């Protein structure tokens, strides 16, 4: 494949894709083996199971405000599946559940975080990720510095950072692209254009024809990909990873997808979303699309689907069980891990808080 679709040569007419809406591959070779596709599809299904579970728990008051991945499964999984968890880093926003799980972040920690337990923030020592980011775009400069630092120390690790179309309006995004271009940092800016930032449509974020072409101004390559096409997202990300690993610098990937769910469990999209547009995108469901692809390959059937669904449900249930059985945090959780060497005043407060609340929990 030529690199001609990368900006500045790329005319953003249509996002790069490999599969038709009904899951038929173009005449070229698939960038993923059938096994790799099956593994990816399982992550996508796992995400659906988790999202449904979390949403219903939120309705029962057992989960906090939570943003599902609904509609963006191929985008997130396609990108993540191009990474090597042993050396590549993920610097997330908050809508990338399957990428984090594939990278090694425990599902129960993810759940605990959204259940409001600080323990959920725990990242196991061998898992190369930064905490989920709530302050939009704040992670993007950090990813840039991380990549720059890895390169400076001679490693061949690559950093991918996820963020939304909304977040890309923040100065942090622009400042980061600029720096990454200068430093040729091995970082992939993975912009998920899901059409919305809460109620604000993509048109209110930029007058540019695409988000991808913003890269030009920073001397960085940009590419636009069909975010509901697992194969295309995987392929483009893999190329960007290889490029970064080879020392040829950063890439901005605009993954064009659609948030078919609510922004989060506190949101009511019927107030602003165009029902017809939503239905149009529901027709392009990324999970169905890749299932159809596997059907066309003759390796998808109802038995296999049920088998995978059952195993996903069992995995989520087991993780939720651990989360449920994790004791509620005590007041110590306010104080632990704030400093390496805590000031005495804070330690005194920690003792006072424990004395006051000790019996309550």
């Amino acid at each position, binding site marked *: 494949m030529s690199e001609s679709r990368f900006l500045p040569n790329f005319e953003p007419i249509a996002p790069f894709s490999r599969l038709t809406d009904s899951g038929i591959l173009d005449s070229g070779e698939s960038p993923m083996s059938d096994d790799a596709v099956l593994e990816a599809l399982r992550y996508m299904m796992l995400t659906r199971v988790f999202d449904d579970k979390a949403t219903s728990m939120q309705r029962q008051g057992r989960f906090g*405000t939570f943003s599902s991945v609904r509609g963006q499964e191929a985008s997130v999984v396609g990108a993540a599946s191009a990474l090597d968890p042993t050396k590549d880093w993920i610097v997330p926003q908050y809508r990338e559940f399957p990428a984090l799980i594939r990278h090694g972040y425990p599902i129960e920690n993810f759940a605990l975080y959204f259940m*409001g337990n*600080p323990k959920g923030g725990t990242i196991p020592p061998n898992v190369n990720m930064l905490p989920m980011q709530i*302050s939009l775009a704040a992670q993007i400069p950090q990813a840039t510095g991380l990549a720059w630092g890895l390169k400076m120390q001679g490693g061949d690790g690559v950093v991918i950072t996820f963020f939304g179309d909304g977040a890309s309006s923040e100065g942090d995004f622009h400042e980061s692209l600029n720096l990454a271009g200068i430093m040729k940092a091995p970082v992939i800016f993975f912009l998920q254009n899901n059409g919305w930032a*809460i*109620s*604000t449509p993509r048109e209110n974020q930029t007058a540019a024809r695409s988000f991808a072409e913003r890269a030009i101004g920073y001397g960085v390559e940009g590419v636009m990909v069909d975010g509901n096409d697992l194969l295309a997202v995987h392929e483009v990300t893999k190329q960007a990873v290889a490029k970064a690993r080879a020392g040829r610098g950063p890439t901005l990937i605009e993954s064009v997808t659609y948030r078919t769910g609510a922004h989060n469990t506190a949101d009511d999209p019927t107030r602003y979303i165009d029902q017809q547009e939503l239905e149009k995108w529901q027709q392009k469901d990324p999970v169905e699309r890749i299932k159809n692809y596997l059907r066309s390959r003759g390796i998808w059937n109802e038995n296999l689907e049920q088998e995978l669904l059952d195993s996903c449900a069992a995995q989520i249930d087991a993780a939720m069980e651990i989360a449920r059985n994790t004791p509620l945090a005590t007041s110590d959780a306010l104080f632990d891990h704030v400093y390496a060497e805590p*000031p005495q005043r804070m330690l005194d*407060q920690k003792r006072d808080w424990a004395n006051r609340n000790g019996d309550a929990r």
Partner: protein
Amino acid sequence: MIEAIRECLGQEMEADNRVVVIGEDVGVLGGVFRATDGLQARFGKERVVDMPLAEGVIVGSGIGLAMSGLRPVIELQFLGFGHQAFHQIGQQVARLRYRSQGRHALPLVIRSPFGGGVRTPELHSDAFEAFYTHTPGLKVVAPATAYDAKGLLAAAMESDDPVLYLEPLKGYRLTKDEVPDERYTVPLGKLRVAREGADVTLIAWSAAVNVAERAAEELSEQGISVEVLDLRSLNPLDIVGISESVAKTGRVAILHEAPLTGGFGGELVATIQQECFYSLEAPIIRISAPDTPYPLGGVEDLYIPDVDRVVAEVVALAKASA
């Protein structure tokens, strides 16, 4: 309270077509808390604008709008994301008049919900008022009642000084006191005596006022008469109003949601000991969050001072002697 804010915005926009509202999701959605609900339908997309997601340019362009002759009301979706605009607020909004030696007035209001207790996601709930009270040139108000919410917002919009108008996330919907239909103002810089008392002065603002009032109720059952002061305005500060109360009680407790060190309570302690030294019968106490980051929702109730804690600390204060 949210209705009072919405009503005030509508009345002011009706009366003065220079008023524009800008912010994230303020238009079609009417704000994530619906404070601007219906305003875009009434006043159009030109005057109620869904901005790109960038607080720096929201506040910075608000300065420019004001200098062009408009009177912008900016919504910062959460004060936690005021940091993204802090350079514009701290260095620019607060100082434009001074730096231009009076040439440029800045009739600008920044509204923002803040504070905890409603299980928001991370980084949304800090009580960051002290950053802004440490920013000369900027007025800071934080109403606790719906009545004051409406009247203080009208006063803030009338003022030719920039005002940071803080709305309590907790109580946004719960606080439902009587609000007159007609327009009125509540002066900036005047506290409200939320409850009269003789033994202890308990000072609070925003959502903490409700905690203070409930604690005072319990304390009265224990025979301790607490005067609750709702500051309403942190800058300007009603030093006279505070002094009058302290002269009467001689004992002071300050309640805030923010961490102890560097919190606005410290400023109050210093001011009171200077202004009221000879009235004081015991050391002033501060009841606050600990010196730690605002935590996840599962432990936020341990973080924010609650009624039980206020009662216990005020009981001790009532017994203490200088």
